[in-house]
Every structure is written in structure tokens, then in C-alpha cells.
């Protein structure tokens, strides 16, 4: 009897221990998810997490075209354009400073579930970029690409290669990310606690739209002289390019090497890639090369967000050029894809935001506000009517503004949800997650989450916030028929 009771007691203890262990493992998983950096397309312009995790969520064998490369690739090529205009179901699997090592292992990973007919590989990382690192990329960028990869022999192999070639990296921290990231609790923000919301949004299929226009004015596309010297590849990069070439050949995939407009490219790098392409019977499209560049109508100052990444209009031009090239060289009979069909609305939303930034006439700007799927904040003092044109006056009157009275309003998707004539107003938006404070006393103030966002000036202050993408879209001041 006593023996039986003892046995029962031990069984009970073991059961409790097991439940505790299960609970612990569950929480441990959650804790690790909380610790890892979040680079998702919804809230970041550098969406390595979305791009890598997203490839697992694509319908099996649904890809015609896979794009690999650095941020220059994922800011340049728009899968929606390639699908809508050229019938190719494309996915952009670029990540920040993606070295050919990472491209190779991500290609292997993608090919487990997909069988694309074409792989486009952006070439900037073949040449020295991070020269003090053995794999030509920084440890942080390597982590961005490798941490989201699911555990498999492929990942182990990739990590082994990292460890073999770069002894400064801590392989243990790839297995136990807390060793690398446990300090992140100090920078936790909304993204860290809304991971499930971030993960569902990958409508742009790897493309990241940059909204700035900050390219340099005196950019010159390259002109390759017949006797131009060639540049050296960074160490190990050619080895991985050879592996990518061999893998594509083995799977009967057409590999296309592509260079985007970039101040870092030169005739020498062009010559190297051209030589490599020729000797391996590959195709090489240099969008940086003068003839091609001019044919696209590319304007580096207008079409680039900085000295190396295209903005939305630049990406449209580059995607169309790539689409035309691929369509003429390797016509692909792609079918319908739900991911691309479903992404159209989101893509259109991005284009609306881009278009708004390009408006220079107040009337057009106000018209666009009525259509925009965003949260708009307006603030103006009692003299507002003196500073605007009649059509803008009409727009503001429709919202409830009256002459000789100060006015503020909050619009959701073009519709006023809150408005008044008080000097001070405050409230919340994004279902209570964010707060605003508005002052209609000159100079008007619009503070979102405690941060002033209104542009200085004596006109009508307008702040536009994309509540879905959690970011400020624009802040302007309408004054005397001018948008400032």
C-alpha cells in the first residue's frame, strides 16, 4: 500500500514537472521572439524579417521569378509591377547587405518549396563593401538574414560556413539568440509586442518603398570603354557566385545578374561581371550602364532616395526595365497568384502616399486627403481663411471650419472623426494606442505621442499619419497658395 502511494506521488510530481517544463518552453519561445530584432515591412524600410519569413508563406511552387541581393535589390524591384505588367509571379528575397554567402543559402532554402524559372541576383555585394569582415558583410546584417531561417541542414551548413570563415562570430548565439540580443529589452517598443500584426503584412512581397527624393545631382551612369580594366571580387564572393551558378544550372533555372544605379558601381565592376557572365553563359543586365540608364529615363536626383537606393519612382522604372528585359529574353507564362492579387490594394495605398508627396498645388493636396486611407490632423488659427484659396476654403468648410474661428480636425480615411474650435485639443487614435495634442494658437502645433510633427509656419498645419504602417507620411503647412 505504502509502495503504491509512493509510486502515485512520484507520478504526480513527474506530471507537475512536465507541465512546468512545457509552460517554460512555451514562454521561452515567446521570450526569444520578443528579444529578436523586428525588421518587418509594415513598420520598417529595411524589412529583412518580412522578406525572409515571407518566402515560407508563399504557396508552394507559386514563383516564376526569385530576386536575391542586398537592399539595392529589395528597394528596386517591385513584384506587383512584374506580375501586373509582365505576368511574372516574382518575390524579392533581398536582405540588407546580403552577401553571396547569404544569397546562396537563401536560394537553397527557397528552392525547397519553390521552383522558379528565373533567379535575378543583384551584384553589388560581389565587390568589397565591408572590407574588414571576412564575408563582406557586417555581423548585424548577417543576423538579420540568418536568424529568421528555419532550422534545417541548410541552416546548419550556412552557420558552419560562417563560423569556418569568420572566427569573430559567435555560433552559439545563432543557436541561443538571447546571448546576442538579450540587451534588447532596453529598446522594446510597440513592434516587439505586436509581432503577429507585423507578420501578416507582406503584401509588397519583398519590395520596400522608399519615399525620399535625395539622390545626388551630378550622378553619371557608367560608360564602359572597350579596354576597361576589371575589378577584383571580394574574397570568397566568387566562390559563392560559382555555387549559385551551379545550383541554378542543376535546377535548370536561368540566372540573371543585375546591377542597379549606384554610385559604387564602375566600369571596372561592370567589366568583371560581364566577364563572369560570359564565361558562365549567364545574362548580365547593368541598369547603371549609360545606354540602359538613359533608355529608362532614370534621373538619379529624382529617382533615388539616397546615393544607392531607388525611391518609389526609381523602383517603378527599374522594375519595368527588368520586366521588359526578362519578358523579351525569357518569356514566362506565369499563372495567377493569390499573393499578388491580394497585394494590389496595399500597393495602391503606397502609390497614393507617394503621389501625395509629389503634390505642389494646395487644392490637389486637399483633394488627395479626402481619398487617402490615413489619419490626417489639421490645425489652424482664426485667421485661416486669409491664407488659403477659395477651393481650399471650401474643403475646410466641408470639414466644419468657420471663418474667424480657429479650427482643428482629425480625419480617418478622409472622414472627420473629431473636430472643434478650441484652442487646445487632445485625444487618441489607432484604437487608443497613440495620442495627439493639437494647439490652434499660432504657431499651430500637432504633437503625436508627445513629439511635435507640425511644420513651422503661419498657415494651415496638416500632419498625415499612416496608422496601419505606424509612420508619419507627410507634414505640410498651406499658406498663400503654397505647400511648404
Amino acid at each position: 500500500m505504502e509502495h503504491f502511494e509512493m509510486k502515485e506521488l512520484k507520478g504526480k510530481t513527474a506530471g507537475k514537472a512536465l507541465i512546468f517544463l512545457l509552460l517554460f518552453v512555451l514562454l521561452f519561445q515567446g521570450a526569444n521572439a520578443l528579444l529578436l530584432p523586428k525588421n518587418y515591412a509594415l513598420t520598417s524600410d529595411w524589412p529583412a524579417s518580412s522578406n525572409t519569413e515571407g518566402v515560407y508563406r508563399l504557396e508552394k511552387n507559386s514563383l516564376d521569378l526569385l530576386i536575391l541581393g542586398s537592399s539595392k535589390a529589395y528597394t528596386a524591384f517591385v513584384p506587383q509591377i512584374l506580375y501586373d505588367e509582365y505576368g511574372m509571379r516574382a518575390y524579392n528575397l533581398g536582405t540588407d547587405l546580403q552577401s553571396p554567402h547569404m544569397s546562396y543559402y537563401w536560394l537553397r532554402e527557397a528552392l525547397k518549396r519553390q521552383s522558379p524559372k528565373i533567379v535575378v541576383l543583384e551584384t553589388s555585394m560581389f565587390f568589397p563593401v565591408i572590407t574588414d569582415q571576412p564575408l563582406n558583410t557586417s555581423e548585424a546584417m548577417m543576423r538579420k538574414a540568418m536568424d529568421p531561417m528555419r532550422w534545417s541542414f541548410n541552416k546548419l551548413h550556412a552557420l558552419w560556413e560562417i563560423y569556418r570563415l569568420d572566427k569573430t562570430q559567435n555560433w552559439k548565439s545563432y543557436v541561443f539568440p538571447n546571448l546576442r540580443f538579450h540587451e534588447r529589452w532596453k529598446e522594446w517598443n510597440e513592434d516587439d509586442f505586436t509581432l503577429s500584426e507585423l507578420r501578416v503584412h507582406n503584401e509588397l512581397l519583398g519590395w520596400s518603398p522608399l519615399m525620399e527624393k535625395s539622390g545626388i545631382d551630378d550622378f553619371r551612369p557608367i560608360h564602359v570603354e572597350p579596354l576597361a580594366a576589371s575589378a577584383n571580387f571580394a574574397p570568397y564572393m566568387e566562390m559563392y557566385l560559382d555555387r549559385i551558378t551551379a545550383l541554378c544550372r542543376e535546377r535548370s533555372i536561368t540566372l540573371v545578374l543585375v546591377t542597379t544605379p549606384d554610385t559604387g558601381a564602375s566600369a571596372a565592376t561592370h567589366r568583371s561581371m560581364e566577364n563572369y557572365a560570359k564565361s558562365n553563359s549567364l545574362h548580365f543586365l547593368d541598369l547603371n550602364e549609360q545606354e540602359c540608364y538613359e533608355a529608362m529615363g532614370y534621373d538619379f536626383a529624382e529617382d533615388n532616395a539616397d546615393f544607392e537606393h531607388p525611391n518609389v519612382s526609381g523602383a517603378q522604372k527599374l522594375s519595368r526595365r527588368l520586366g521588359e528585359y526578362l519578358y523579351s529574353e525569357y518569356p514566362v507564362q506565369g499563372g495567377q497568384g493569390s499573393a499578388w492579387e491580394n497585394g494590389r490594394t496595399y500597393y495602391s495605398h503606397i502609390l497614393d502616399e507617394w503621389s501625395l508627396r509629389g503634390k505642389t498645388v494646395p487644392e490637389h493636396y486637399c483633394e488627395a486627403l479626402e481619398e487617402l486611407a490615413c489619419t490626417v490632423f489639421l490645425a489652424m488659427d482664426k485667421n485661416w481663411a486669409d491664407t488659403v484659396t477659395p477651393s481650399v476654403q471650401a474643403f475646410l468648410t466641408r470639414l466644419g471650419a468657420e471663418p474667424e474661428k480657429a479650427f482643428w480636425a482629425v480625419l480617418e480615411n478622409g472622414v472627420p472623426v473629431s473636430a472643434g474650435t478650441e484652442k487646445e485639443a487632445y485625444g487618441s487614435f489607432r484604437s487608443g494606442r497613440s495620442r495627439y495634442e493639437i494647439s490652434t494658437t499660432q504657431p499651430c502645433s500637432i504633437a503625436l505621442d508627445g513629439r511635435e510633427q507640425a511644420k513651422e509656419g503661419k498657415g494651415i498645419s496638416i500632419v498625415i499619419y499612416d496608422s496601419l504602417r505606424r509612420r508619419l507620411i507627410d507634414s505640410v503647412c498651406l499658406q498663400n497658395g503654397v505647400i511648404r
Partner: protein
Amino acid sequence: MGLAFYTLQMLSYLIDIASGKINAEKNLARYALYISFFPQILQGPIPRWSELAPQLFEGHEIREKNLREGLQLVLWGFFLKWMIADKAAILVNTVFDRFPSYQGVYVLIAGILYSLQLYTDFLACVTLSQGIAQLFGISLADNFRHPYFSRSIREFWRRWHISLSRWLKDYVYIPLGGSRRGTAQKYRNLLLTFLISGLWHGGGLKFLIWGMMHAIYQIAASVIYAPRNRLYLALQMPEDSLPRRILSTLGTCFWVMLAWIIFRANSLSQGMEMLRSLVTVWNPWVLFDGSLLQLGLPGKEWNVLLVSLAILFAVSVLQTRLRLRDWINQQHLMIRWPIYLLAIFAIYFMGTYGEGFRAQDFIYGAF
């Protein structure tokens, strides 16, 4: 390597045999197990044959209570090490390693934090040892009994590193004659005992001076005992009054801290300079102008450190009134488990470990 602890353990075994207190163990395997019982070999506590050997040889079943209490101790050990000792070490190392850049109040803050770092670091290691031993059903003796609650240096040494203090008392101080042969002899014995204690901690002159300081503190306390008592009575502060208890506890902590500054300094001369700067450099504003946040420990880490110290204080106070592990064990699962999980994940997220930190070896492992 833990050689210092190992050596004292061996010596106590041999002396006890020679004095007839215990019999020599004839079984080599048993002797080897006693002398190399792994949880305590690195940093003690320094066991006696009569306390540890019977537990080692009697055999133990795996029991839930032992496993639970062992893991509780391990968790507490990690808390002490990663939430307090290694966080405090960042600031302490900055001030001590970059002296004379930091003087005055910086030295005071570093001295206070080093006192806490050393305590929690050593306590962490001993607690981990106790926890691991407990998993096997073996209870190792406590090596600390809230030493910073002591009201005198003499009491401090009854609460700090208890196994070493007992060793020195039993094998050095008492054989020298202890306090039985007059005041002068007692003072001599104290000086010799603490000289040996200093030597045991390291070869540098600073350790000798540190040991001497503790001997001198006790001699001075003995010399001024009567006039000090008269002063307290004149101030209407009897022995057990709260103000006197606070004053004597803070006073003891202060003198101990001064000695720890010498102990931690990179050399004796640096230690003396640091002590001098406490009284010659006037810079109290560094407490308020954010300067303390520039010592390698950012604001959020400071918050974690201060909250952890508050937890340590609360636990220490509770431990003086009850056995906390018993209290936890009596609680319902729905209270116990959240406590465990909260502690585990607080350490997991906010502990000082991993990349970006130079892992701190256990300080007493170096002696």
C-alpha cells in the same frame, strides 16, 4: 582553481585527525569524494569532515523537495550574480580601473557598489554550490548571515565568510591563545589571525593591509568601548534603540567599505589615494547631474540594479524572520510557479551576460 579552499579543507582534516577529533578515513574513494566534492571546491564553503562526510556517504534518494529547493537556490544564485554583482561590476571596474579620472563621490559610490558586488558575487557562488549539492540531497552550511546587518566589525566576521572565519578561529586564533591571556595577547592574536587572513586572500601588500585594517578596527572598538557607551547613554541612545542600531550598522558598513576599497584597488598606493580622495575631493553634484550614468551603466540598467538591490534587502530582512524557501514551498502552485517564471525571465532578459559583456569570474574563485 579553488586551491585556497581545497588547502584549508585538507588542513582542517589533518589537524582534526592529529588532535583526535576524528579518525582518518581508510577508504581512498571516500576520502577522495570528501576532498573533491565538486559543488563547493571552487569557492567553498570550507567544510569540516564531521559536517560533510556523513552526508556524502549515507546515500540519498532523489526527492522532489531536494530538487525543488536545489533549483530555488540555483535560481537565487543566478539572480545575485547576473542582476546585481555583474551589473555593479561594470561601474566598479570603470571607477577603479580608471582612477584617478574618478575621485571623491565616484569613489564612494564605487566603494558602496563594490561592497555589494563582492557580497552578492560570493554569495551567488556559494548559493549555487548549495543548490547543486541540495539536488543530491546534501546540505552545505551557510557561508553568510546578512553580514551588512552587523553592528560591529566583530559581528561582521561572525556573519561574513563564516566557514573561513570559523577555520581561522579554530585553527589559528584559539591555538594562539585567543582572548584568554590578557588584552595585549588578545590584540596580538587578532593581528596575527587577520594577517593570515590577508595572506590567504592574495600575495599583494594591499591584502595584508586590508587584513590589518580589520584587526585594528576590532582593537580600536575594544579600546573605545567604554567611552563610546558613555557617549551613547549621554545621547539617550540605549543599546537596542533604533537610532543606535541604525547608526552602528551604518558605521560598520562604512568601515568595512573603506577596507574593501583597499582590497579592490589595483595596488595599495592606488587604494590609499582613493581613500584620500574621499575627503579631499568635493564633487557631490555628480549624484545629480547625470554623471553616474556615464560610468558604463545606463539609466535602465541602474533601475534594474536598484530594484534588484531592493529585492535583496527585502529577502534579507524576511530571512531574519523566517525560512523563505519553506514559505515559498507552502504556497499554492499558482503562486509558486509565477514566482519562478518571473524570476527566470527577469534574469533571462535583464541579466548581465552574453555578448557585449565581459563575463565576470567569481571574485573569490581567484583566491
